[in-house]
Every structure is written in C-alpha cells, then in structure tokens.
C-alpha cells in the first residue's frame, strides 16, 4: 500500500533477513567457553536483528508515535464517540508520505479495541484506493467485509445497481441507537475521488449525515488539495474535519526518535547485552559524525521512513564479529542512501561511451539544452579524435552507433519522440538525462580515465 515501504523491506540486505551466524574460529585456549559465548552472542544478534527488522519494516501499531499526541486524541475521541454514542462522523487524515497516517490510525484502533465499552461494538471496513479501483469493486468489498454476503446466499452477486441498492438498504435500516457502528477506512482516499460521479463517497458521506446506521468515514491521503477534488455535493456532505499530520519535530526530537528506534526493549532476554547495546546507542547519539549524518538526513527529509531505511542499512552490518553499531556503519549507510543512481551507471561505461556523453555535454553547452541527434554527437566525437589521434583509437561509425544505442538503453539518453520506422536512427532527436555536474563527478571517480578525455570533458575548447 505504501510504495516506498515495501521496497525498503525488499531491499533489506540478506544479512538482516537471514541472520547469519558466522562460526568463530576457536582459538586454542578456552575452546568450549568461547564456543558457548559465541553461540550466545549469535543468539543475541539474531534477536536484535529480529526486533529491528520488525520495527523498521512493518510500520505496525506497536511502534511509537512521535509528535502527534493532539491528533491522536482527536481521532480517538472521534472514534470513541462513534462507538459509544453512535454518532456519525467523517474525517480526513492528511499528511505527506511517511508522516504516520496509517500508524496513527492503527494505533488508535488498537487502543480503541482494548477499551471496554468499545470491544466488539465496531465493524470495520478497510478499503484502499489502489485495490478498489472502481465503485463496483469497492461495493463488493464492503459487502464482503460487513459479512452481508451470507445474507445474499447462493445468489451470484448481481449487478452493480442491485449491489448498491442492497447496501444502501442495509445501511438505511439501522438507526443511531440500535445498529452497530461501522468504521470505513479509505486508504489512498484521493483515488476514490476519481470514481465515476463519486457515487461511493456521496453515499458514504450522505449516510454519515443522515439518521441511518452510524458510520464514520476516515480517509487517508497525502494530497493537500483533496477538498478541491470533491464534487460540490460530496463536499457539502463531508464534515470538513481534517487531521493534519506534519512531521513538526525539530532535530533534538529527531535524535530522540533515533535513539528510541534503535534501543532494545527492557524485555530483551539477555540483559547485559541489552545494556551494552543501549549504552552504545546513547553513545552514538552523542557522536559528532553520527549527528552530522542524521542532520544531513533530517535536512533532506523528516520522513521517518527514510530514517528507518538508513538504520536498516546500518543495522545490516551487525554480526557476531561486529556486535555493536559504530559511527562508521552509519556513515557508510548514509553514503549508500544518498548516492546518485544515474551517476553510478556512468561508472560502468566504456571509454567510448564516456566520450559520447562528453560530446553530448558539449553540445548541450553550445546549443543551450537544445536536443541533438547521433550525427551531431558523432561529429563532435570526430573532432576530438582528430585532435588527439595519438591517444584515442578511431572507432568506426557503426561501433559508435552501437555504443550510442547502449546509452539509449540505459536511459542516459532519451529520444524526444518515439522512433518511427521511416526516420533514420542517426537523425532522431535526443536529450541527455544527465546534468553536467553529474558527468564531472562521475569522471572524478571513473577508474583509469585517459587524461585527454578528462581535459576534453573540462573544456570543449581545450584543443585551442
């Protein structure tokens, strides 16, 4: 559901997923004792990794909420009134991605379910705009989740119209005091807005504003302009209750969050290890380099999920040999985290391809970003070859063309329009998808780059 969340867990290094227990080479002395301790520490490490993995990969309700106490109370009160008093409501939770919307809702629901007056007194319907792509699917899903399809019996669920009438009928029958309240959670709310006529939203909001079965509609979205997307009748029926989540903490709190996220809980089996680990975390949080790393990340994004990603990368370095996190681990992770993907690709190119890219860079400079074609690039490359004939092998045109097409495949170069059959490949207009600063940086780290090429890259006028 969160596009960024899933890949993060998928990208988790193998060591985190499968805690590797590296057999220690026993020294001559105290073989058995060492073996025992190594087994023990291996156990500890795998425990630590398990805890951290759960914390970072599933943004579950168990995780803590940071800086949203007020929103928490607002939402909890709202849902409590729905369940206890049977009051219908509607609300939107709005906040940028990774600001903890789902976490907040899960948290509230978890606490709500533990309450005595609420238990078993609330029906929940969870919909997701990415899954329920139209109202028909959504209606079926609602019916399924309300377990109304057993009423429908063996009938194959009829047409969309019947479906809607059926559901509206069911909801109309209830009243405030006797029917079980229903909570509708619409994740990716902005996608529901695009359904035809906004029928589903109209009906849900209409029910929430009329004396029928008590319902509360909670929408989760990251779009700040969501209200402008609602149709005027739908908008009028929406209660305009908006809960904004902004990552409004400062850097000090950020460090605190960092500490909390990394610390081991009190109920960790091996207390001494937990003590050691937590001390280390405390130590890390005071370390200058670590703070610099965190500051950098904090300046880029306040999204806690990117912090999780960073810690995940760092945590993957923890092994039996290396049981405690160090500042270097974090630095390394940060470097990983912020590398430029396109520039990375450039590192793996051949010299010819690098030369072509440099030629394109010069063309961009000369023609101020106007698109170019292969012939222009080839001419530019030829000029360079003619000047530096002694240092560069003069490739034939088909070879250069092949290299150019490789760049096209790597999407370092993009055609302006789709290549048609009639147009000659040499004259297709292209754009370079790299910035000159990226090219220069990549050249800095490019292994065994000929000096001539480097000079040519620095200035197109170097032949003068």
């Amino acid at each position: 559901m969160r596009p960024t969340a899933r890949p993060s867990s998928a990208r988790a290094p193998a060591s985190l997923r499968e805690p590797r227990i590296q057999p220690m080479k026993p020294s001559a002395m105290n073989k058995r004792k060492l073996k025992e301790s190594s087994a023990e520490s291996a156990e500890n490490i795998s425990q630590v990794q398990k805890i951290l993995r759960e914390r970072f990969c599933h943004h579950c309700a168990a995780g803590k909420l940071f800086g949203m106490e007020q929103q928490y109370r607002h939402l909890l009160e709202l849902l409590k009134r729905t369940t206890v008093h049977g009051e219908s409501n509607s609300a939107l939770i709005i906040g940028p991605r990774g600001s903890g919307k789902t976490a907040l809702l899960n948290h509230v629901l978890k606490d709500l379910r533990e309450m005595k007056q609420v238990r078993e007194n609330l029906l929940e319907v969870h919909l997701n705009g990415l899954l329920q792509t139209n109202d028909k699917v959504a209606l079926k899903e609602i019916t399924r989740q309300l377990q109304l399809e057993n009423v429908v019996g063996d009938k194959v669920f009829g047409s969309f119209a019947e479906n809607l009438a059926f559901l509206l009928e069911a909801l109309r029958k209830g009243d405030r005091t006797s029917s079980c309240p229903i909570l509708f959670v619409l994740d990716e709310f902005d996608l529901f807005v695009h359904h035809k006529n906004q029928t589903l939203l109209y009906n849900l909001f209409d029910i929430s504003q009329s004396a029928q079965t008590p319902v509360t509609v909670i929408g989760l979205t990251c779009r700040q302009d969501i209200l402008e997307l609602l149709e005027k009748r739908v908008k009028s029926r929406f209660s305009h209750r908006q809960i904004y989540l902004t990552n409004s903490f400062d850097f000090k709190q950020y460090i605190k969050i960092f500490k909390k996220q990394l610390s081991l809980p009190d109920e960790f089996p091996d207390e001494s290890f937990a003590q050691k680990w937590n001390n280390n975390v405390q130590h890390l949080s005071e370390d200058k380099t670590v703070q610099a790393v965190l500051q950098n990340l904090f300046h880029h994004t306040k999204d806690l999920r990117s912090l999780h990603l960073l810690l995940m990368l760092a945590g993957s370095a923890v092994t039996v040999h290396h049981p405690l996190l160090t500042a270097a681990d974090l630095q390394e992770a940060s470097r990983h985290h912020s590398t430029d993907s396109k520039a990375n690709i450039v590192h793996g190119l051949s010299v010819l391809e690098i030369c072509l890219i440099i030629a394109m860079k010069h063309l961009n400079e000369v023609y101020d970003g106007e698109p170019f074609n292969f012939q222009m690039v080839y001419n530019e490359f030829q000029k360079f070859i003619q000047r530096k004939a002694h240092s560069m092998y003069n490739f034939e045109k088909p070879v250069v063309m092949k290299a150019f097409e490789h760049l096209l495949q790597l999407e370092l170069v993009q055609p302006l329009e789709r290549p048609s059959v009639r147009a000659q490949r040499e004259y297709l207009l292209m754009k370079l998808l790299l910035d000159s600063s990226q090219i220069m940086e990549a050249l800095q780290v490019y292994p065994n780059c000929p000096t001539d090429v480097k000079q040519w890259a620095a200035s197109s006028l170097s032949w003068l």
Partner: protein
Amino acid sequence: MNTRQQSKLIYSWYGKPLNSDRKLRTSQYTGILITSESTKTEACIQLGDFILVEGVNADQPYVAQLMDLYEDGAQHKRAVVQWFCRLEEIPQNKRKLLKREISAQEVFFDQVLGYDTDIAAETIIKSIMVLPLHLGEELPIITLNREQTFYVRQSWDGKCFKVLSPDTFSKLKEANKKRGVITNSSKAFIPSDILTPVKRETGSVVRSATKSKNPDMEIESKHSTSKSSLAKERHSQRVANNDIKTPTARKKLELNSPTRSKSRLLGCEVLGLLDDDCDSIAPLEPSATKRKVKFPSEILGSPPKIPCSNDKSKSTIETAEERQRFSETMQFSPYTKVKDFSEKDKNLHEKDDILSLVGYQKPSSQIPVLTPRSRRTCAQKTSALIAEQISMLDQEDFQSGSDSSYSSNSEEEEDDDMPCTPEKKPKSSRIFSTPKSSRKSAVHTPAKTPKKTPLQGTPRTPRTPRTPRNATPEIPRRIQAAQEPASVLEEARLRLHVSAIPESLPCREEEFQDIYNFVESKLIDGTGGCMYISGVPGTGKTATVHEVIRCLQQAAENEELPPFQFVEINGMKLTDPHQAYVQILEFLTGQKVTATHAAVLLAKLFSTPGPKRKTTVLIVDELDLLWTRKQNVMYNLFDWPTQKHSKLIILAIANTMDLPERIMMNRVASRLGLTRMSFQPYTYKQLQQIVSSRLKGVKAFEEDAVQLVSRKVAALSGDARRCLDICRRATEICEFARQKRTPEIVRMAHVTEAIDEMFSSPYVNAIRNASLHEQIFLKAILAEFRRAGIEEATVQQIYHHYVALCRVEGLQSPTVSEIMAICSRLGACRLLLVEASNKYLHMRVRLNLSQDDVMYALREE
C-alpha cells in the same frame, strides 16, 4: 395455436336490462357473461358475486364485491364494486394495529373513501369466494382451495380496523348464499365445459379407457389447459394489444404464458394439467369438512371407495388399478396424462411408505416426459406444492378422484359439491397458483410496498432488494447499548448533528408553503405536474421537500387529502440513469425487472387509467445526474405527468438554477414546465436561527459565538451543513479544553479555533513543516520563475539554482537522485504539480499555490 386469438374475451350482458335511465342513457343489468372465444367457455358473474379485479400487480388482483352493473351513455360496460383490501394494501405502520397474524387469504372490508368504486367491467377477471367470519372465529382449515377463497373478519377505514358490523356480516353471508343459488340456477346456460377440468378429465379418461374415446379426450384436455392459462393469456394479451384499457401492463405474464402455450403442443402439457389437478381437487376439501351431511349423498355414486379411503394400502391399490387403466389410455393419447397421477402417487408413496408400488408406477414412457419438466424449476415447485397438499388430505383426494371417475354425471355432483365456488374456478385457481410455481417467486414474495401512506419517520419505503432467499440485509445490532448524552455539550452535539431531524425547518417557511400548495392542489385535482427546485448544496432543498411530504401524509391520514404514494429516487444513488425506471417500478409494484422493461411498464402504468390508483408523488433528487446523451430518462420522467391519467407529481431537485436551459433539450425543458423554485443560500441571520432553534433549551453556546459561525459560513457558502459541523466541532474543542468537571459553554475562542481548523489553507502549514532541503527547493523554484518570467520550469533549471542556494546556506549540495526524491515528495502532497517522472531532469514543475503564499510561508521563519 395462436394464443392471442384463443384467449380473446368477450364481455356481454347476462339477461335483460333491469331498469334503464333514459336521461342518463344508462341501463342496469344483473349479470355479465365473460365468453372466451377460442375455448367457447362462458362464465357468468352476477350482482353480489365476489370478484377479482385486475390491479397494478397481476400477482395480487384486487378483491371486490360486485354491487352494480350498468352500461353508460357511451356504451361502456361499467361496474360498481365494494372493495376489499388485502393486507399488502394496508400501510405498513397500520398493520401493527391488528395485533394478530394475518393469513394471506384474509381481506378487509374496505371502507376507505376516495377509491374509485366505478370500474370498467372489462377489468373483472373472475368470481371468487369471500367468507365472512367473526373475529374470534378460527380460519377454517384452508389447505386446498386457498387461492380463491378469502375470509373477511374486520373492516378497514383507512385509520383503524373494526369488527364487521352485523349488518355487513349478514349481507356478506347473504351474498354467499345467494350465489350458491344463482350458480345452481344458472347452470342451465353454463356450457358443459365449465367444470373443474380434472373431474371432467378424469371422467373422460375413464371413459376413454373403457370406451376408447381418444379424440374427445384430447380436445377436452386442450380445453382444460387453455382454460387454465386463460387468465394469464388474457393479461398478456392486454399488455400486448392494449385494446382494453387496463392499468396493469404486465409483461411478466407474457414471459410465463408462452412457455405454457408452447408446452401445450408437447407432452409437457401435463404441467398445466398438473396445476389444474391439485387446484381443482383442492376446492373439495373445505366443502368436505363443512358439509359433512351432504357428503354421503354424493358419495352414493361411488360406494366402493368410501370404506377404503381410510385404509391407505387399499386405496393405493385402487389408484394403482386406476393408473393401470390410465397407462392404457396413455397408449392412445400422446398427452400422457398419467404423468401427473404418477407424480401425485409418488408423493403419496413417500407418505405411505408403500414402496412396492413405486416400481409399478414406472412406465417406460415416463422418463421422456419427465425430462422437459425437470428443466423447469417451477414444475419442481409445483410438485412440491402437490406433495404438500396431498400429504394434508390424501383421503379427500382419493375420494374426489374416485368420485369423478365413477360418476357419470359429474356436473351435478360438482355443483353440489361446492356450491359456493362458481364455475370459473379453474381460472381463478390458475391465476393464484401460478406465481407460486413460477420462477418469479422472488418478485412475488416481497411484501408489496405499502402504497398508501408510508411510515412517518421513514418516508422512504423499503426498496426490498430481496434475494431469492428473501434475505433482508441488515447491519448487526450493537452489543452494548448506545450511551445517552450525559453533559450539556454532548446533548448539544447530538442536536447539532446534521442527521438530527428538527421539529420544524426554520427559515424555509415560504418555500415550504409554495411546495406544499403546489402538491396539495395537484393532489386535490387528481392531476399531474412538475416542479423544479434548485439551490446550492446545504440549503435545505431535500429536507424541505421531505417535510412537505411528511405533512401531506399527515393530512392524507387525517383524510383531509386524497391518499397518495410517495416515491423517491436519487441520481447519486443510481449507478446508471436508466436504473431510475427500475427503482420507481420497484417502489410502485415491487417488481424487479430490467431497465428497458421497466420503462415500458411504467409508460403503460402512467398512460392508462386504472381503478383504485392513487396519485404518485415522485421526488427526483440530484436531477442532473439523470442526464444521458439522448436525455431519454429525463424526457420520460417529465412526459408522464403530462399524460391524462398519470396522476403523477414530480418534484425535481438539482443544484443549478439554469439546469433546464443548460443541459436539457428543448423538448425536455418544455415538459419540465416553468414551475420553478430556487433556494437561496442562507443568510447569517437564518443560519443563526437554525442553530439556535436546534439548541433551544440547551445552554451550550454563547450568543456571539453562534453569530460568528453564522457570519463566517454565510460569507463563504451559506451551507447549513457547514454551520452545524463547525458548531459541533466547537463543542468538542470546548470539551477538550475545559478543566475537570467544570461546566463550560462554547465561547468565541473555541469557535474561532474550529473555523480555523476547517477553513485554513493547509499549504502554508505544510511548507512550514517541510524539511530544510524541501524549503530550499521551493526557494529555487521561485528564483527560477523569477529569472525565466514564466511559472514553469524543468528540474534541471531548478537544480542549478538549488546548488547555488545550498552554497549560500553552507550546506552540502545534494545529488540529483535526492533532488528527484524531494521533487516527487512535494508532488505527492500537491504542493507542486509535476510531470511523469520518466522525463527525469526534463520533468516540468509548476507550483500548486501562488508564489506569494510560498514566499509568505518561507519568510516567517
């Protein structure tokens, strides 16, 4: 055989005119003959007979007593009737008054005024039996004859149920007795065909078995089947030809009847016979119980059976013998009448556990006969029905079977047998039994939507989207009781909820009066009309209209107005504009059909006059969503009220004032007419009044606080919903902020906070809480915009500014990947509008808010 030709009915007067009025050129008659041309059957209905009259719903014809027959000046045959009403015709909320279970066969002596008792004679279907009973009296065990015998215990005058007055009671009794006499006396002209078919048939079967009169039997069996489906065909024919003005356009029947008429050609004809069988046997039952004295006399004709009838094994042997005879006849006739008997017997054997006979009753010819019927579920249902009936009284069954088979003069016997059931029985049994056996039972089962005045609290009648299992969707009930408001603020919140229905709608008195007068005048005149109501959301359009309907229903209940039925559709609650037809038809008749079919049926319904039809008030909410390219739906909706007999009043509601001019074709707009009303947005005074009227008696708000909300909302939209929502939110904030247990009322501060929460722009706050690099990115955008002079830039252009800004701030300049991440994050929040990300550096970026706003948000820091 052509069904239509066959079932053409001719209505003619029976006897000479009693007296005639020269001036009015009317003449009265004592009876009417209904002749079916094709089957050469005649039925006579006399004054005082109980009859079935075609109604809106063919499954539920109206029950009435024929009071008068006359021919008016225009040579139209008219009938004056005394109505009886079924339970389904009584409003749901009134049914509770009965405080007892009502069987489907119980009707009520109708004393409701306002029904048209003068009907076209052509709508009479057939005669039936209505027995008056005392209130305490048990219903006679009706098992077989239930489809055409009705019972009346109480009268219904639209408000309450009363015990039948002795006068009425005796009159009804009288009528029943009289009819017995009449039927006897009228025997003379009844053609011999008018018999219960089975008796005739079985008789003929026996005869044919003994005398081998095959052709004769064939004809008769045809007769019986054709007769049996006569009522249906008649219906369908009317629908098709529209020659007689019936209010009931029933395509559904057509769906049924073809299968029947087709089946007639095959061995499947048995089906019809099967139905006839059980139904015609059925009438014997009540008479058998009631007229024990008479029984011996008629049984005399068949002495050998009676002693055996109790002894089941013997009797089954008898039937087995009979069957043997039948199976012999079967060889002659292609119609394999044996089928139903064997079917019946099968059921019998199941009951009697005489398995030895099962093998016996398996003639090889049975299997091919079975196959076509097994395809039809209705046949299965019928057999189930038979099983039920037979299980209840198999003895009588045998008796009758033996009676008829042994009696040579079965006609007389039949009349003695059931003097109260007139000649038309087969027909009547047919029309009632069919729905049971038809596949459309799902349509039949849902209770007809109450047609008179529906419940007050729930002005909408249930739409009954029933499934075949008759399931009613329901949200589970809550386990713990809902808490009642404990504090003043909670009470206020409850009252301020939009769903809370106030006693009156303040500030819409004028509009209310206008709409009320419009509908009332149309109701009184019995004509139709349209009204278009417009207004921005939240101005109380729907609420006012509902209030009007509520008041009208009240008035109708108090008999100040003629009764009417109320239907509501909502464009937003339809998946497709054409579904409107389906929903309207379902409201009116309880039928569920496809959209195109519903349109045809509705057009018929509204274009033909019908007895007993009430005015329909139709609310069309969110009219603009019924727009289609051809505007068929709108055209039809607004065309119906202009029909002479439609009695349809439409209140169309939409948001825009000029909707008719803007989206409707001329022909649609012209039909909509010029009766328009527009609801102006509420002024702040009105909003204030609305809030304070809801809070009457609850001291929860400061006066000024309410005024502030009202002024704010009035300035923005005039939406009452918004106003109430803000007030409700303010109570929450107040409760949130107050100290422990100190009573608090909502003050200005709370209201201001609520308003800010709802109306403040989220962008500024979002920018302020963005990370440093995101803010720098926004600054870079501003710088690029300023440089280029256009409000659009590519990421690459912004990137250069960005790097420069980072240098100024002394920050490490980020990589392009990070820039892209920042850009997509801001794009997801819609602070920026961005292109598809595959263009990478050449992706174009635009701000989704004004530059000033961004500047303002960034400068504050």
